[in-house]
């Protein structure tokens, strides 16, 4: 089922949670709504589910407007961050709940319900747990029960609100991959809300980055990661070094920006900010034509597949993070206190309104 969100605005009191948000989701897609807490992603999800009502705008499911339709008519599966399982029901009773509350005419026979529950529990790999109560399960198991429960009613879209948010790193990694495989099997249009950029980039077909009630950028994981449309997206997706106007115009860093501008701001009151990912910075032991920003090595973190180096720029005392391959690190023979010269392999510059700050 395709989902269309058109110019949706939602306010809680004077606070605008969603500001004119429009979004189209194709049938069978898995979309991640990514953003920091308070960016409105959960509210958008709840509006889609019918748990909240938008103040303005429309929701169309499969081309039909449902803005004012009841939740029960929407055929959505909703998975909550804190599972929201019925704790006085067994796992099997939880999963069959959606079938047991159907009107008598549509309700499957007890045998059919039983079979369906078994199939779903097999799908989430919890057959052995059918008679347990939720408080006898681990967090990851509970969330899988919640997912099976949501799938039991054969929803046309699946909405997941930070489903792995309350789990530890290892479990969430496993579950996220499992969810992706499950989606490839079932092809239910799914929207995953998360504040974890890794989760969004890994699981989703498309990532929608939200910030302060607006959509900042929507695109494939590769697009948003490699070509962030706004400074916010750049910052939110992975580590980044931020060079403000003063350094940006320091021709040593960016030759292409050798423009005659006063440091920090240009005539229109805007300033430029340049973003460089840690792995896009190259170090050289001597000053070259390209590498002219002088910095001192402060820390070296050599554990892991790549070596992370924290530098302090000589001119601005700003911290610069660099990521090198092990080979390059060994070549350079870097040690704490060494002086190096930095040069960006790839960077992106944004013009920002207002004076240079933060």
């Amino acid at each position, binding site marked *: 089922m395709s989902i269309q969100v058109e110019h949706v605005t939602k306010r809680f009191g004077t606070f605008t949670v969603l500001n004119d948000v429009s979004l189209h989701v194709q049938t069978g897609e898995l979309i991640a709504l990514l953003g920091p807490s308070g960016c409105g992603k959960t509210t958008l999800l709840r509006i889609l589910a019918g748990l909240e009502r938008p103040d303005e705008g429309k929701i169309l499911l499969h081309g039909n407007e449902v803005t004012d339709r009841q939740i029960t008519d929407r055929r*959505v599966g*909703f998975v*909550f961050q804190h599972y929201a399982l019925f704790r006085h029901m067994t796992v099997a009773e939880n999963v069959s709940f959606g079938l047991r509350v159907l009107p008598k005419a549509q309700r499957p026979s007890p045998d059919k319900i039983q079979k369906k529950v078994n199939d779903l529990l097999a799908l989430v790999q919890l057959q052995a747990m059918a008679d347990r*109560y939720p408080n*006898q399960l681990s967090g990851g198991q509970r969330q899988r029960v919640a997912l099976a429960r*949501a799938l039991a009613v054969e929803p046309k879209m699946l909405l997941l609100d930070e489903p792995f948010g309350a789990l530890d790193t290892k479990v969430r990694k496993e579950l996220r991959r499992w969810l992706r495989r499950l989606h490839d099997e079932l092809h239910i249009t799914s929207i995953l809300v998360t504040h974890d950029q890794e989760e969004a980039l890994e699981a989703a077909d498309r990532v929608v980055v939200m910030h302060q009630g607006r959509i900042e950028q929507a695109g494939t994981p590769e697009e948003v990661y490699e070509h962030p449309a706004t400074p916010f997206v750049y910052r939110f997706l992975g580590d980044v070094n931020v060079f403000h106007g003063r350094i940006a115009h320091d021709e040593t860093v960016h030759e292409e920006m050798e423009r005659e501008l006063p440091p920090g701001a240009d005539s229109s009151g805007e300033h430029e900010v340049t973003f460089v990912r840690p792995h896009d910075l190259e170090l050289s032991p001597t000053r070259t034509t390209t590498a002219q920003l002088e910095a001192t090595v402060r820390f070296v973190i050599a554990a892991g597949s790549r070596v992370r180096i924290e530098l302090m720029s000589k001119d601005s005392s700003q911290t610069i993070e660099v990521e090198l391959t092990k080979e390059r690190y060994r070549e350079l023979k870097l040690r704490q206190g060494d002086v190096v010269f930095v040069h960006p392999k790839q960077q992106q510059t944004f013009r920002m309104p207002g004076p240079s700050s933060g």
Partner: protein
Amino acid sequence: MRPMALVLKQPSVLPGFGLTLGFALFYFSLIVLIPLSGLFIKTSTLTWSQFVHTVTEPRALASYRLTFGASFLGALINGFFGSVVAWVLVRYRFPGRSIVDALVDLPFALPTAVAGITLTAIYSSNGWIGQYLEPLGLKIAFTPLGVLVALTFIGLPFVVRTVQPVLQDLDKEVEEAATTLGASRWQTVRAVIMPELWPALLTGMAMAFARSVGEYGSVIFIAGNMPLKSEITPLLIMTKLEQYDYAGATALGVVMLVASFLLVLMINLLQWWSSSRHTAR
């Protein structure tokens, strides 16, 4: 397993178990056990046949029926309406909510005689409400119905105050989950909310019931106190005391005590069962 079959004291890093246990037992004996055993000792001055005669005479039997029956009905009524009041207080924000919330405690705080006189004034045949009920054939004051009204009045806060915190803690997401799964409001209440609420509701009703059984002040004004008709057991005890029939009074007291204890125990077991049924086993 330790060799000793009965280990009272679990090893704990926090000191003071012995002291607090000793004090708690001493206090409990002083306040509860000694007066209660006095009741039994006084009653034992009667012979068995005298005892049986006292506690089974028609007037006593009628009073038990009224006392326990009206208390039970009152607890049921409070169970339903008290839950509704608690629900409204927890779930909705409306002007004057905190005043209503405070008013719920009034039956606790009001001297019971004041409550009795007020209810009598309102429900008597020329009272505010009574005058409209009288033509309909409903007499409340000075009938068993009046006893029920008084007992319902004093029992309300017990149910509201036990149910309220549980409703407050109820996870709203669970209800939303039920709704997204297609459950109607009624199905959600029945299958999702009520199972969570039962233990607290039963406790509240048990407390309202226990309080009602012992209620004296508010009832005697509205009941009319006609023997065999609208006389409650506590009043019968008072009557016996006034006639210096102390042993007879304590005999009735023993019956009340044992019956109340059994009923409260039963409700506690029921509550324990309903709260443990769904959790770890």
